[in-house]
């Protein structure tokens, strides 16, 4: 990924920044500028909480180029508490522990690396909600692979 491209998406990838529609109040992620609910402009930034639950999930055994070292990995659709669905990997959990409806929260991790010298792309993944941290803000931001 070109550094400019990674930089462009920083607000979304690191802060889960979506948008709120001034017209109908819908909260949108990813940002899409035109509200799909009422077709009016929705360009006001709105950071999402990063909390939600698993809507569906799968384990990828045959990864695309650039993701080989992570395979097998879990990708999921997460239903965020503000409404939107979001695609992301699950982390800190084994496949057999995941279930539809599982409460999850956002963490920041390495999404992929491009070889020895390429850009290391960071972004959101989701992990099971840790009970003792359930009342803390949703971005512990422990940056590890």
């Amino acid at each position: 990924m070109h550094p400019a491209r990674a930089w462009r998406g920083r607000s979304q990838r690191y802060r889960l920044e979506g948008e709120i529609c001034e017209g109908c109040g819908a909260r949108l992620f990813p940002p899409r500028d035109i509200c799909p609910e009422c077709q009016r402009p929705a360009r006001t930034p709105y950071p999402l909480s990063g909390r939600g639950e698993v809507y569906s999930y799968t384990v990828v055994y045959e990864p695309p180029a650039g993701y080989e070292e992570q395979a097998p990995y879990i990708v999921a659709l997460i239903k965020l508490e503000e409404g939107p669905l979001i695609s992301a990997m699950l982390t800190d959990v084994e496949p057999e522990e995941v279930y539809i409806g599982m409460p999850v929260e956002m963490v920041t991790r390495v999404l992929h690396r491009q070889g020895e010298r390429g850009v290391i792309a960071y972004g959101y993944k989701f992990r099971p909600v840790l009970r003792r941290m359930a009342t803390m803000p949703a971005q512990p931001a422990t940056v590890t692979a």
Partner: protein
Amino acid sequence: MREVAIIGVGQTPVGEHWGKGLRELALEALEAAMRDAGVERLDALYVGNMLSGQVEAQEHLGALVADFAGMHGVEAVKVEAACASGAAALRIGYAMIAGGLADFVAVVGVEKMTDAAGEAITAALATAADAEYEAVHGMTFTALNALLMRRYMHEYGYRREDFAPFSINAHRNAVHNPRAMLRFPITEEAFASARMIADPITLLDASPICDGAAAVILCPADQARAFHERPVRILASAVATDTVALHDRRDPLWLEAVALSAYRAFQQAGARPEDIDFFELHDAFTIMAALSLEASGFAPRGRGVAMALEGAIFRDGRLPIATMGGLKARGHPVGATGIYQVVEAVLQLRGQAGPNQIPHARLGMTQNIGGTGATVITHILEAID
């Protein structure tokens, strides 16, 4: 608007064509179709293709194929809409004739996938999804379909094995299709124990990576009889779109663009779902077949798999699907698939489908799906008496 007919079809075998590149495959299908139609001159050529830029570092296929086919100066462009590229090219050819801008048009779908390694093809196919918000998270095409399949099983209470009839039917039909890639039957036991690709999707839910090209020749319907004794009319041609990203849909298990494109096609054809004699649907994965049956109006919500379990999709059922093997067993050379579907439908309507012939087939429907349902193109074809 003028009526449009198909007067010639051609197809290469689907498989691993190590000895042939994009241009050779496209020409083989194009020549076969022109021979079938008895046509020597074309006004325009449309090439449906998805991956040539990524796999072969070759774009500009309109001019490339026209040049290689010796059609100096002819109008030619490539049309791209992910896995729906083939039908998208047909849509353009149809519109050119219906609108009176051309009389003789060839539409070629061509794809070359086997020159790239597995991980590269997986990454290339993922470009049909949202690069910024799906693919970057390691989402593959199989994974997206697996997310749909698991949620479907969760909501409607199906088991993984319940999807077996889709693949069993496709493989059984491919046995008698000399162009099909996987010409062998499979059993329920094989389906149940197949290798996992993205849980719950196994190798036997998924269509194979392959090469192939297919072509059709179109002309105004009122001239068709002069070229072929059994021309086929394009009764309807309809395109609809939805969000590219699966997560942007309010209800991921309802393929809105399938519903819209099928509805528009039925309206245009003046037909209802029960009038359709067979349906070449986009069974890239078993779950796509189920969701397509539901949103197209052939099965109620959550009953697409039940319809397969009841046997309604078999050759002697209420709505035969994948009658020549479908994407699952004929093969899914992505940008060519939409044209293979139409070629096979034409063979059925001409009565040339061999052992797989659907008796008295009059109305056939084809549906080509790009991405997880972001572009859906439905055609309804009719045998001309």
